[in-house]
């Protein structure tokens, strides 16, 4: 028969394995579970069996993820989705920070030369940011920062021309694309139809768009040839990592809130549910728009240039996302506040 200290060591090893369970649960159940494990263990056992190790580790993890009832499961799915898209968008944002600087004016001119109208020369304009609000808009910056924008644009080096309208714009654009393709560029297949004809080609991390800007007067229309970046290689891996991390974190947070509100007063439980629901609803429009962009990022056959965080920059969706984030943080803070039972225990 081992020394009593051997039993104590086994108990300590069981307690260590219980660290995968949340602290509050360990406080409530830990000693009892260790007693049960010791009761079940033969007297000469010094170490937990492999089955016990697996059981306690997975049991603790399962406990952290556990929600029950339709409301709990729906809440956890919503929280996991919203957090997954938010962190996926953050991953995409970080991935885009690895984008190469835009080409110099001379390099940009060399790139787009086949697309330019023959015999023309033009000074390019530059938007050297990666993505930002359209700098040509006159609104003060705080309007965009608070209210969002529907003019969120990729950085680019671009050339603008006026062009006599003796030829249809479509013909000019198609001619430019044909010449670019002959120079080794691949068609991007982007839908630039909108109001006016347009086309895009890509190569070596650069995207060249040629599109008509519409009629400037009775005899001329504008034409723009722009060089921008295609999606850097780091974007999709970081987006994917963000999606997974967000889904796990969102589910864990929801499960934590769910566990905590079981022990709350009905008033506080209702208040937490209302605040969390407002948060999720307010985040929904931005999340939905970013989901569309994310889907395009993964499944488009050409290199998409839309950022995954577009939803959080969009007009009206942005202030709603601020409200949603504040409500979510508020809900978590309310949940973290000790309830009457815990206050009594702390006081005791």
């Amino acid at each position, binding site marked *: 028969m081992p020394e009593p200290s051997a039993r104590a060591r086994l108990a300590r090893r069981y307690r260590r394995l219980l660290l995968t369970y949340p602290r509050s649960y360990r406080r409530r*159940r830990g*000693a*009892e579970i260790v007693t*049960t494990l*010791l009761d079940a263990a033969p007297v000469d056992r010094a170490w937990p069996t492999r089955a*016990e190790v697996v*059981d*306690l580790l*997975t*049991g603790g993890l399962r406990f952290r993820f556990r929600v029950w009832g339709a409301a709990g499961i729906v809440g956890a799915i919503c929280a996991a989705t919203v957090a997954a898209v938010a962190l996926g968008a953050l991953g995409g944002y970080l991935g885009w920070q690895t984008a190469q600087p835009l080409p110099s004016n001379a390099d940009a001119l060399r790139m787009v030369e086949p697309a330019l109208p023959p015999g023309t020369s033009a000074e390019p304009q530059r938007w050297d940011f990666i993505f930002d609000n359209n700098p040509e808009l006159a609104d003060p910056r705080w309007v965009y920062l608070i209210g969002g924008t529907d003019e969120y644009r990729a950085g680019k080096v671009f050339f603008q021309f006026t062009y006599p309208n003796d030829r249809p714009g479509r013909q000019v654009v198609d001619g430019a694309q044909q010449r670019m393709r002959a120079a080794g560029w691949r068609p991007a297949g982007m839908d630039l139809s909108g109001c006016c004809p347009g086309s895009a080609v890509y190569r070596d991390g650069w995207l060249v768009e040629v599109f008509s800007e519409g009629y400037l007067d009775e005899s001329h229309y504008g034409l723009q040839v722009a060089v921008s970046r295609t999606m850097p290689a780091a974007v999709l891996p970081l987006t994917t990592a963000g999606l997974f991390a967000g889904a796990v974190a969102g589910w864990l947070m929801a499960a934590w809130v769910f566990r905590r509100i079981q022990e709350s007063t009905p008033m506080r439980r209702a208040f937490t549910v209302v605040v969390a629901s407002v948060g999720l609803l307010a985040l929904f429009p931005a999340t939905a728009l970013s989901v569309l962009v994310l889907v395009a990022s993964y499944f488009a056959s050409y290199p998409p240039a839309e950022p995954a965080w577009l939803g959080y920059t969009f007009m009206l969706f942005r202030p709603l996302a601020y409200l949603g984030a504040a409500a979510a943080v508020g809900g978590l803070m309310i949940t973290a506040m000790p309830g009457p039972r815990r206050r009594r225990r702390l006081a005791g």
Partner: protein
Amino acid sequence: MREPTFLTLAVLAGPPLHGYGVMRQVAVLSEGRVKLSAGTLYAALDRLTAEGLIAIDREEAVDGRVRRYYRLTEQGGAVLRQEAARLRSNAEVAVTRLAGWTSRPGLLPS
């Protein structure tokens, strides 16, 4: 209702039992077929307590270790009775059907 949950309720339809007692009795009742691990047992005890099917009967400290005893509640007894009736009914249906069944398709029993 899953078998470990059913058996946990079944063993508590008797004197109150502590965690290890439940584990042991479940193994005995199932003739060794169902062996509850501590993780599974306490997940079931938490859920059944939250649903009001079992309750803590008392706590004891033995050799400085906490033992908590569980008992079946009235609601738990009703749920167990209902589930047992359902299983019995299903079993009777199966037994009746098997009595008239032959392994050779197309042949009716004489």
